[in-house]
């Protein structure tokens, strides 16, 4: 599916190492441009949108999706996908909230760690299904999407955990900030930077790209493919678990339906962020920017006094506009590079 999509820029990126080249290599350029356009236009119409408070809100809104997108990127890079993230978020949000409500004695750190662990367990199940048993990831995680949500419903049995049931100290994680930066945003940024660093600088990180790029060749290269794939799923699950804790802290009211349907938002963020859905390329930074762009769009639409009924349509149109813009930019840079190479050749 990706062959045509990638061909143009590919055969062309070579030779010179000038500015165009360097810029052309920054796959995230298109998203940054789209973000700039979005914030520019919205800010011009309503300067309030660019106020510190508002920017803080937007960052806060994207923190959870960005965390999920980082995990999803790990999986997508290996030519897999994790559709079950939203159910894992729901499960861990509800589980965490329930413990906080029913066992007030348990320290918050333990609860958060428990959420992460629960997520990691779910991820391990996905990983085993995909990595060890060879079930295609889409099928496996579509299955666990239903299954985890089923467990969540059965566990909750219609119960809801409310803000009043949870300790204030936990809720303040969702709203508090450090040096003016919201804690949830800090958490997301730390996760982003850590994973981004590992993907770029560690052998195991590069091996994830290799697996997604050509799975059979990865085996021949002696890469422990199964282990890496399982690890990617575990990491995605653990981050979804963390996102669950973030969800509970942020929204305060949690029932079994929490985060239903968010998997599409996460995948949209990843794809808009330039991560190739069939593996092998893309960065977590792109995915996080994608998450920021998508939440930015909804925030902008809410601020712009757009007719509520038209919002969904405009949202969709803007997503498409963003990927088209990104694509056109890539083609431009590619064409420029091809002409340059020609001149170099003479």
């Amino acid at each position, binding site marked *: 599916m990706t062959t045509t999509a*990638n*061909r143009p820029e*590919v*055969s*062309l*990126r*070579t*030779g010179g*190492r000038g500015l165009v080249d360097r810029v052309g290599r920054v796959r995230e350029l298109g998203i940054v441009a789209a973000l700039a356009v979005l914030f520019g236009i919205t800010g011009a119409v309503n300067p309030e949108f660019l106020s510190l408070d508002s920017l803080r809100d937007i960052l806060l809104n994207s923190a959870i999706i960005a965390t999920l997108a980082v995990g999803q990127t790990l999986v997508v890079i290996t030519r897999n996908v994790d559709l079950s993230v939203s159910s894992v978020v729901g499960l861990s949000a509800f589980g965490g909230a329930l413990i906080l409500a029913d066992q007030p004695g348990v320290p918050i750190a333990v609860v958060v760690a428990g959420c992460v662990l629960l997520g990691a367990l779910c991820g391990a199940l996905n990983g085993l299904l995909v990595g060890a048993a060879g079930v295609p990831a889409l099928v496996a995680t579509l299955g666990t999407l239903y299954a985890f949500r089923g467990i969540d419903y059965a566990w909750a049995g219609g119960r809801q955990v409310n803000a009043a049931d949870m300790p204030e100290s936990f809720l303040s994680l969702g709203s508090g900030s450090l040096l003016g930066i919201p804690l949830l945003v800090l958490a997301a940024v730390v996760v982003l930077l850590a994973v981004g660093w590992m993907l770029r*600088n*560690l*052998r195991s990180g*590069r*091996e994830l*790209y*290799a697996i*997604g*790029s*050509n799975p*059979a*060749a*990865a*085996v*021949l*290269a*002696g*890469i*422990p493919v199964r282990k890496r794939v399982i690890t990617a799923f575990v990491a995605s699950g653990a981050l979804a678990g963390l996102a669950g804790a973030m969800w509970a802290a942020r929204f305060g009211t949690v029932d079994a339906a929490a985060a239903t349907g968010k998997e599409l938002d996460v995948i949209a963020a990843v794809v808009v962020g330039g991560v*190739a859905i069939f*593996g*092998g*390329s893309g960065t977590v930074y792109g995915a996080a920017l994608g998450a920021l762009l998508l939440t930015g769009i909804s925030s902008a639409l809410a601020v712009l006094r757009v007719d509520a009924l038209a919002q969904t349509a405009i949202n969709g149109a803007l997503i498409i506009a963003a990927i088209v813009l990104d694509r056109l930019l890539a083609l431009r840079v590619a064409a420029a590079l*091809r*002409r*340059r*190479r*020609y001149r170099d*050749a003479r």
Partner: protein
Amino acid sequence: MADTPPVLALRGVSKSFGAVRALREVSLELAAGEAHALAGENGAGKSTLVKILSGVHRPDAGQILLDGEPVEFHGPADAQAAGVAVIYQEPTLFPDLSVAENIFMGSQPRGTLGRIDRRAMRAQAVALFDRLGVPLDPDRPARGLSIADQQLVEIAKALSRAARVLIMDEPTAALSGNEVARLFGVARSLREQGCAILFISHRLDEIFDLCRRVTTLRDGGYVASDLISAITPDDLVRRMVGRDLDALFPKQDAAFGEVALQVRRLTREGVFTDVSFEVRRGEIVALAGLVGAGRSEVARAVFGVDRWDAGSVEVAGRRLKPGSPSAAMDLGLALVPEDRRQQGLVMELSIERNIALAGLGEVRRGPLISRVAERVRAADWAQRLQLKHRSLSDAVDVLSGGNQQKVVLAKWLARKPAVLIVDEPTRGIDVGTKAEVHRLLSELAVGGIAVLMISSELPEVLGMADRVLVMHEGRLVAEIPREDATEETVMAAATGRPAGGGA
């Protein structure tokens, strides 16, 4: 030498894939400081043997010995750890990663915190390419590399491992003389440093050039192991094929008809410039040049796979619509592409369906496909090309490399084209069948087809072509008639020395 056990050896190894017995009780010994050749027809089991040595396959019976001790390889990682480096017959690159990363995947130089030292990695890659004498950019992604460049990256990858045993499965199939010479230079120096080498090629002269010993396989069985100095090429062919062969280049003279393919001032920016030539009916024109000269790119553009920026292509006087292979096919053009796995075949489809793919209109009865017509068409060509297969409904990816190449040829020949472009038509094909393919091309030309042949194998070019076009850095630099075509004239033009005639 007799005291030290062979570095790596096979003893009585057998391997079957379902009903196919790919190897039967084969033994082989690789000694330190010795280059050992493996010869055999397509499908004889050479690659299977390689994959057993590299831990990809497990033998059904028999043993692998490392320094005389039996070992078990549970996967490629084990073999690598034991110091075995392999160049597989089909390139196994990661298209999204840079060339340098491809080379060092899994063994990247590391700094503090396990951080990959990119600068060192790049420098080492450049050093490797210098050693091989190829100007590849280590920072470009592997996607889009020509098949020859991919092969070179594979070679660099194997060399980077500083292995005790270097196994090369047809590393030269896509390379031209220059690169082969460089590769052999490197191989010799490795050999001198005590590395054991296993070398596979269908080009017999290469075997005689590099190796000290040769083991022959036939139909999965062990035939013989000889000292190279003790046999002649004809002996070797007899061991492989079990009979004597006809002339390798049975070129018949054909009468040339009107111009069938006319290319005028064709330019694709950054790839090739101002390419003009014509091919007449009955003529075989060879397009020669070094790897990366742009020959395949011209062929792709002519066939409509790539677009061009300027110029025109005419087939039998009719202008071709750019960028549309189906339009080109309607005018009787056919292209046998160089990369069989990517461009030639749909690996999951069966042999017969692959052969039918380029002529779906011809196996139709009414609106539906006729399986009978499809099978008849496939069976006919499988026979003519001596395809070694179990059943025509097997997926092509279980075929050996050379047999896959035959399927690609069959797919296009079955269309009975008026203009046939073949890009490295005999890549990976064994000597016996190669003669058959050459006879076929020659016959087609006699039958009035215009043939444009791209080949990196100079003897093939000289033996088959009525006229040789030579490309250098994206330009056509020489046109040499059959009488004047010699290794010297062609190579001079191909390397850009002004000796050749100007175009």
